[in-house]
């Protein structure tokens, strides 16, 4: 079963390696891993998708917390969350097929972001299922190249995971946050 973790980490050299190495070391299979900045300086955010069972997910979470640079781990798999993947697909396009292609792009709410004499690049954002669906119908035209970002995820509602990481800026966990369950516990 695919488990999706949102992980806040200190933005320090080698942190991505520590996280990736942990999954390798504990024999987990990473489906996808994306990382980028947050609105807080010094804090990065990862979305990690791992194929494992419930027990494995708990183990992954506990071990992530053991990394000193990990600030917060949220398993958003069960709860309400928005999950998105972005793909760019370069498809062969002749003057005869182009209009049919554009129709499909429209139906899938994708966009054409580049047009060349013999190809187009289509950009699509959505769930993996939706992107897989588009790929399926594009395949007969001839897919020349494709790139996907891998899943990014965010919990729905006003609750802000990032707020729990707020103590970061002060570079130490303030005493009043020490009992906050959402804050990292490495041992």
């Amino acid at each position: 079963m695919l488990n999706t973790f949102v992980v806040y980490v200190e933005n320090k050299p080698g942190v991505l390696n520590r996280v990736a190495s942990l999954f390798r070391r504990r024999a987990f299979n990473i489906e996808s891993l994306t990382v980028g900045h947050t609105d807080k300086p010094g804090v990065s955010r990862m979305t990690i998708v791992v194929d494992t069972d419930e027990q494995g997910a708990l183990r992954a979470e506990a071990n992530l917390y053991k990394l000193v640079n990990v600030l917060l781990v949220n398993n958003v798999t069960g709860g309400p969350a928005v999950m998105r993947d972005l793909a760019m697909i370069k498809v062969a396009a002749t003057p005869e097929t182009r209009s049919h292609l554009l129709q499909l792009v429209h139906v899938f709410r994708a966009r054409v972001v580049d047009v060349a004499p013999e190809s187009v690049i289509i950009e699509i954002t959505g769930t993996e299922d939706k992107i897989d669906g588009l790929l399926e119908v594009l395949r007969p035209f001839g897919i020349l190249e494709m790139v996907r970002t891998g899943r990014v995820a965010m919990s729905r509602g006003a609750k802000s995971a990032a707020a729990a990481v707020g103590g970061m800026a002060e570079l130490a966990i303030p005493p009043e946050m020490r009992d906050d369950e959402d804050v990292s516990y490495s041992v």
Partner: protein
Amino acid sequence: MTKTGGEIIWECLVRQGVKHVFGYPGGAILPAYDAMTRYPIHHILVRHEQGATHMADGYARASGGVGVAIATSGPGATNMVTGIATAMMDSSPIVCITGQVGSKLIGYDAFQETDITGVTLPITKHNYLVTHADEVARTIREAFYIAASGRPGPVLIDITKDAQQSSCEFEWEAAAPQLPGYRPDLSPEPEDYDHALSLINTARRPVILAGHGVIISGAMHVLRSFAEKSGIPVAPTLLGLGCFPASHPLNLGMMGMHGEAWVNKAIQEADLLLAFGMRFDDRVTGNVKTYAPTAKKIHVEIDPAEINKNIKVDVGLVGDLRQVLQHLLPDVESVDRSEWRQYIDELKGDSAVRDIQNLPDDGHLYAAHVINDLWRETHGGALVVTDVGQHQMWEAQYYHHEQPRSLITSGGLGTMGFAVPAAIGAKFARPEAEVWAVVGDGGFQMTMAELATMVQEKIDIKIAIINNGYLGMVRQWQEFFYERRYAATPLLSPDFVKLAEAFGIRATAVSQRAHVVPTIREAREYRGPVLIDFQVEQEDTVYPMVPAGADLHNMIRRPSPIVETAQDV
């Protein structure tokens, strides 16, 4: 005050309370070594960097503090890997400092450049690459804090040569740790306490499993009160030996692969296991599918990642063991559990008869005799450091430890070559202790170069080589599971007595039982290092044994001429 990075290293070590550093110099760490002479730190020159890490480890385990090892880049750093992994598996707090090539050269395969932070990533609790002098102080402070707090472990700091050479303002106070993602101070939920207490107070056949965590958290005293108040018997793990007095009536003896048969049976029949600072290693559980099938399980453990890792438990109390036990103690009820303890006593059955100590003297010298005599002669008061193999298990079985930190052994990684250097480290930590290294003929030869370190440092350690002419534990597996095909286990050794003498160490060989005690006495009376080559029975076997992966209660027992003959009739 302006200081070089190299000076800041020692300045910080001194402020951390470090008195001894085990190390070996080289190009990339030279600036630091050059600064060392100006600081009140005793540097012990080892003969191999692996030795430095085991010494730091032995130092940490003997003292309860942090051990420090230092080495150069490249080969110096990679030689530390085994010692770091050993410390990691046994939760031993050490700080390893390595030199690294200049920061401008990193990534260019410069002379003696090894990506040691990459190499040690999975075998350190945390590690650092430091490329600026002004990062040195904070990094060292963080490293000591991380190594010693929570579940302890090794931390490596790789410091580039230019970071050691360049200067910056040094201010200790300004370099406080900044670790927003590190929280070693967890405590259990109130409802989990309640749940645990109701299980404890209603259990009829409970057993306490006491691990290394009891010693690390200093919970010996409260564990004893807990056991005495509740009447619950205690079974230590290998690394838990000494956390509960061996002579205490509630001490059942060691559990696990080479534990006592009745202890394993008691665990299998228990209705409640109280796992205190232990991690259900496969060497103590046997087949996890059939492990303690009727028992509820309470796991008190500082590392949340251990809860439900190997064995699914009913209650996990995450926190410092001593604090958790102190919290539980007032509500633990005194229950009469004498019937259960008596039952366990009956489980002993013919164990005593099968014990090698009670077999008729056949004129041979057995390792168990040596260990037992050593225990008697030292009145159980020595600090014993063992290597890995059969002799390690015999030590655990026949040296009865009353005090915590009186046995130091590589449990999790099972690192041969550990004993001699770790004993040296232990002796520096506790100079007043009588330190014995109990080591196999195989493992001794892995790190015996450290005899020179002992002599150069004039330290008084007694070394007992249990010389059976084999890589005995491996031979034992071949005997049981590979039809006695002794592939690569017969071992030719040098004349250990002459070897020791070449180092300037007094030495004797013993091959008869009657000579064991007098030789041990002589060694104890002599002030200075002594090596004894105990030439023991070659094909003896450690009993009882749970074959790897077998059910915990299915142990291979020592055949006894007395028992077997009696049954024949």
